[in-house]
């Protein structure tokens, strides 16, 4: 298989490893080491994409990250990858890619008709039309959306893994070109911990794309030597294929490592991509510079390439992108491309240089090249591939053109100068500054521990890059306490010559107003032309931020890497100022796009959020329980028998508790051990009710408010000893309550002597409820007198249960005789099972949270968070008696504000339907007049609603305006399903109102 544009020798490709890849259905040969772009160019494929808006044919522009046309979709199905840049796709055997956003094909794209109407689509045209008839935007939008976007989302869940890697270092070096290699090495030699990251396949940067020599060695060999020495330093880590993408506060950076994208899918067991989360003491940015295109008519045609890209294809990939070339430049660097082309066997028709003759043009002429000084390429011929260029002579100031000329060619290599990649510097919070001599933005003063070296600092000369690199490495290491800041060795020398200065050339004049000539693209990816910028300015969108948003300049997948500086300069021209006073738009992460999954660390499903499990969890699973998420916990929801519905199971579980004995795994309740002489004082302040004098061995229910007076948590606190208490909190509120209490103790009342320890996880809690619970427990516990007299309701005792030391609380959330047995969780399962064995004769039944909710609702007990929502006070709940009158407590003062003492507040009530079978909808809104016009006044809502098997009727709880004074009145509950149900306001305690059953 031939690769017609592959050079016979050279390049860093592995010719021993040929491969094939597919593009748009055709199979092409290439080599390991190729990118999709170099593979395509080797096979003479230039047309690879269509533009976003006009669907203009687009080719490959550059060789690296600067590429902004060649977006492709790689692979199919769940592993498909949208919007990859062809220059960054490393080929492996069998890779398949295609053009995106084309129909039916990239060669013949029907949407190219958009181009015919381009005149009707100036920037922001959509703000001016599609407005009629009113309300019709959805229809227009539907059509417009179809044309939107580039690639397509994969068709299924991601089969690959991703992870995070947290890493600390003394010096992080971003970019492994000459400057970065030098910095990393110099820093590494001091013994500092150094990380060097480069987004490309291998270190070397621009050195691999050229033919220079360092210390007499070919640049590639010099790079190898550096890499070897780096590898010998134990504290230095070098990562390839790793892009530093985000620079955040406190020298925290994110970098994306593409671990396996260059391999056939499935061939590496590790994560596909890894997000490095880097905490660096010092950062050296050595990210190089990106060549700028020139802005002339039809400068987006396939075959127009960046000069540096052309050189890189020749040197790095041994690919000659064209055979007849024209080079168009306003600076020296493209001359090297002309020489590279010549050396590689291409015909160089001319070097078109906007500047007057200088040293470089003389040198080129010496080599037999035609140099056309003070000339410009004003337009190109050819649509899907250029056939030639149109030339004109430039006036001395570059502002106007005259004359006419043509050259035939199939490649136009352009250079408009270089833009340092100041992105990371800017992301760190610093502001790039404009350097008029270098005609580019360079780093401004640092605001974090960061410095730049090499081309990203505007130093384009290799010697300067090396010097800055070594110095930056030494200085950065020194700042972390390593080395003395001086250089360990002399800086290697490279041969170089003085050149001629660059001449700014922001728009190549074409003899007519910019608005009237064929499109001169500034941001080809977003189809933004020079005329668009001028239109925006004319309409008053005249600051760079407006231009960006109005024209979309720099908002595309390349974030303006290629076009922004030209755009800024064109805007500056309009204002008669320099780019520096216009400034850049804000650079933000990501430097290049980063995979969602990598950012998330691949932590999905059960790793998305911890699943907290009790010691008895597995037993529930074995019994076929269904689970409910409560906070991070999984709680057994109900335990259906085969074929049983939720309702049936819950009825059965409830009846078991009411009639015999049921068991609940209550281990998830928060438990805080509190010890110290001031524990009671503290409790007395954080609970609404008095806590100064709880007898030892007794429990007290408490309400906790936030300072705004709203109910925050509730639970039972037991006094275990003179200065020793155990607080229970709700399952979901445990962590919050603990930090709330610590906050008050540590910051407001540090004088109080007490210690709090969370013991939630230590105790497994087996809650035996029901009239037979005493009988069951008695079989397992001989050393505690379980009788009512010596172990009454709201008491706590210690003893052994099933041989395990236990704390037993006689507290109840169901209204039945209840023993909450707490044991060291390592024995939780043992005790649980012992309880079941002992209870077998009583038909002991496990019950879940649903039954628990029904049972407590029968008793009118609130669940914080279900019956309350952050706007409910104890008074609203009818619990005034729980408010200590003679003491202050958190939230107390708030209860006396004018709105809180109103009588028409929503108050907690019971609700009973006429039809005992009818269960009110939870969340149903309560109204007085169900047919009042909308908006209909609402009284409140149903917070809890169940069928009570014990009462053989439905019951509900709710919040109703002025409800406490409306007992017996009828209200109506309305639900979105169309139901309106009448219900009578009742006391919220439906079952055993005197509380006799728990007190036996």
């Amino acid at each position, binding site marked *: 298989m031939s690769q017609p544009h592959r050079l016979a020798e050279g390049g860093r490709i592995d010719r021993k490893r040929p491969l094939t890849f597919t593009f748009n259905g055709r199979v092409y040969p290439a080599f390991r080491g190729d990118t999709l772009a170099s593979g395509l160019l080797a096979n003479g494929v230039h047309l690879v994409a269509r533009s976003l808006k006009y669907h203009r044919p687009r080719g490959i522009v550059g060789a690296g990250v600067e590429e902004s046309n060649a977006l492709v979709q790689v692979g199919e199905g769940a592993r498909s990858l949208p919007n990859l840049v062809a220059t960054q796709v490393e080929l492996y055997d069998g890779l398949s890619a295609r053009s995106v956003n084309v129909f039916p094909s990239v060669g013949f794209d029907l949407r190219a008709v958009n181009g015919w109407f381009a005149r009707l689509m100036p920037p922001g045209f959509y703000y001016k039309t599609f407005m009629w008839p009113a309300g019709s935007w959805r229809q227009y939008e539907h059509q417009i959306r179809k044309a939107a976007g580039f690639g397509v989302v994969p068709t299924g869940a991601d089969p690959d893994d991703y992870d995070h890697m*947290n890493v600390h270092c003394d010096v992080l070096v971003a970019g492994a070109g000459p400057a970065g290699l030098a910095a990393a090495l110099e820093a590494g030699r001091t013994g500092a911990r150094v990380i060097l990251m480069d987004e490309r396949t291998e270190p070397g940067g621009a050195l691999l794309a050229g033919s220079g020599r360092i210390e007499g060695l070919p640049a590639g060999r010099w790079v190898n030597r550096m890499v070897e020495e780096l590898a010998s330093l134990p504290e230095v880590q070098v990562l390839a294929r790793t892009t530093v993408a985000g620079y*955040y*506060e*406190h*020298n*925290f950076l994110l970098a994306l490592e593409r671990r396996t994208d260059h391999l056939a899918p499935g061939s590496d067991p590790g994560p596909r991509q890894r997000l490095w*989360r880097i*905490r660096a003491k010092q950062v050296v940015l050595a990210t190089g510079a990106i060549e700028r295109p020139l802005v002339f008519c039809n400068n987006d045609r396939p075959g127009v390439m960046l000069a540096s890209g052309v050189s890189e294809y020749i040197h790095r990939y041994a690919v000659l992108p064209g055979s007849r070339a024209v080079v168009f430049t306003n600076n020296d660097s493209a001359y090297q491309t002309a020489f590279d082309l010549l050396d590689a066997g291409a015909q160089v028709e001319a070097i078109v240089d906007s500047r007057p003759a200088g040293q470089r043009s003389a040198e080129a002429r010496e080599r037999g090249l035609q140099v056309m000084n003070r000339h410009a390429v004003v337009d190109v011929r050819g649509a899907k591939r250029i056939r030639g260029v149109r030339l004109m002579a430039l006036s001395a100031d570059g502002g106007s053109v005259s004359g006419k000329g043509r050259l035939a060619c199939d490649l136009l290599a352009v250079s408009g100068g270089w833009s340092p990649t100041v992105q990371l510097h800017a992301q760190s*919070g610093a502001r790039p500054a404009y350097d008029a001599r270098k005609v580019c933005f360079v780093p401004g003063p640092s*605001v974090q521990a960061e410095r730049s070296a090499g081309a990203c600092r505007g130093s384009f000369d290799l010697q300067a890059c090396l010097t800055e690199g070594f110095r930056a490495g030494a200085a950065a290491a020194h700042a972390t306490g390593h080395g003395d800041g001086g250089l360990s060795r002399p800086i290697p020398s490279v041969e170089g010559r003085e050149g001629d200065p660059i001449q700014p050339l922001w728009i190549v004049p074409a003899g007519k107003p910019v608005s009237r000539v064929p499109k001169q693209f500034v941001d080809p990816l977003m189809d933004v032309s020079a005329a668009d910028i001028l239109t925006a300015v004319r309409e008053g969108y005249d600051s760079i931020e407006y231009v960006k948003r109005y024209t979309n300049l720099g908002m595309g997948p390349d974030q303006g890497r290629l076009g922004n500086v030209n755009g800024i300069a064109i805007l500056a021209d309009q204002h008669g100022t320099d780019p520096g006073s216009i400034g850049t738009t804000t650079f933000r992460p990501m430097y290049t796009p980063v995979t969602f999954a990598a950012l998330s660390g691949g932590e999905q499903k059960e790793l998305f959020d911890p699943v907290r499990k009790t010691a008895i969890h597995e037993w529930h699973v074995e019994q076929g329980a269904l689970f409910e998420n409560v906070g991070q916990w999984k709680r057994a929801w109900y335990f259906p028998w085969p074929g049983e519905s939720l309702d049936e199971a819950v009825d059965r579980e409830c009846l078991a508790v009411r009639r015999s004995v049921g068991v609940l795994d209550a281990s998830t309740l928060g438990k805080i051990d509190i010890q110290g002489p001031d524990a009671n004082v503290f409790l007395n302040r954080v609970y609404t009710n008095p806590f100064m004098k709880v007898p030892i061995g007794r429990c007290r229910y408490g309400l906790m408010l936030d*300072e*705004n007076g709203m109910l925050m948590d509730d639970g039972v606190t037991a006094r275990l000893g003179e200065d020793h208490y155990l607080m229970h909190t709700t399952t979901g509120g445990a962590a919050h309550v603990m*930090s709330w209490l*610590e*906050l008050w103790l*540590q*910051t*407001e009342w*540090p004088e109080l002597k007490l210690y709090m320890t969370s013991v939630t996880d230590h105790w497994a809690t087996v809650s035996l409820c029901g009239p037979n619970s005493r009988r069951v427990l008695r079989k397992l516990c001989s050393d505690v007198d379980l009788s009512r007299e010596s172990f009454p309701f709201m008491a706590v005792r210690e003893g052994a249960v099933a041989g395990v030391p236990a704390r037993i609380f006689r507290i109840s959330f169901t209204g039945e005789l209840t023993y909450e047995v707490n044991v060291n969780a390592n024995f939780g399962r043992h005790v649980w099972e012992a309880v079941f064995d002992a209870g077998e004769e009583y038909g002991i039944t496990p019950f879940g949270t649903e039954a628990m909710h029904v049972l407590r609702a029968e008793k009118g007990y609130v669940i914080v968070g279900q019956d309350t929502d952050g706007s409910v006070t104890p008074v609203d709940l009818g619990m005034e008696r729980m408010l200590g009158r003679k003491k*202050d407590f958190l939230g*107390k*003062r*708030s209860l*006396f*504000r*004018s709105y809180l003492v109103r009588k028409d507040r929503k108050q907690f009530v019971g609700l009973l339907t006429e039809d005992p079978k009818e269960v009110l909808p939870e969340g149903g809104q309560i109204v007085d007049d169900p047919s009042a016009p909308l908006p209909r006044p609402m009284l409140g809502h149903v917070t809890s609603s169940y069928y009570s098997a014990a009462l053989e009727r439905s019951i509900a709880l709710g919040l109703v305006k002025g409800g406490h004074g409306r007992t017996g009145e009828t209200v109506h509950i309305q639900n979105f399903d169309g139901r309106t149900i009448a219900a009578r306001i009742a006391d919220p305690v439906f079952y055993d109102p005197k509380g006799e059953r728990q007190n036996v």
Partner: protein
Amino acid sequence: MLLIECPWCGPRDESEFAYSGEAHIVRPLTPEELTDEEWADYLFCRRNTRGDHLEQWCHASGCRRYFNVQRDTVTYRIKSVYKPGEPPPGDRP
């Protein structure tokens, strides 16, 4: 991503800490004597400083201690950390 220096444990990643609002908000000793407005001021009104902000953090995943931080809310630079009860650095309006 802040690197916060716990006065006890030293510099740790932001993810180990819990923010707990403006520092030096002292609970009135006799709330019942305050007007509703004064109480609301204590409850809700904040300096919300743009610039040097004195704030409370808790080393939640570490030593569980609350402490104070002086942080610039624009640059996010942390100027100092100090323990509860210690006076804030510099003059304070």
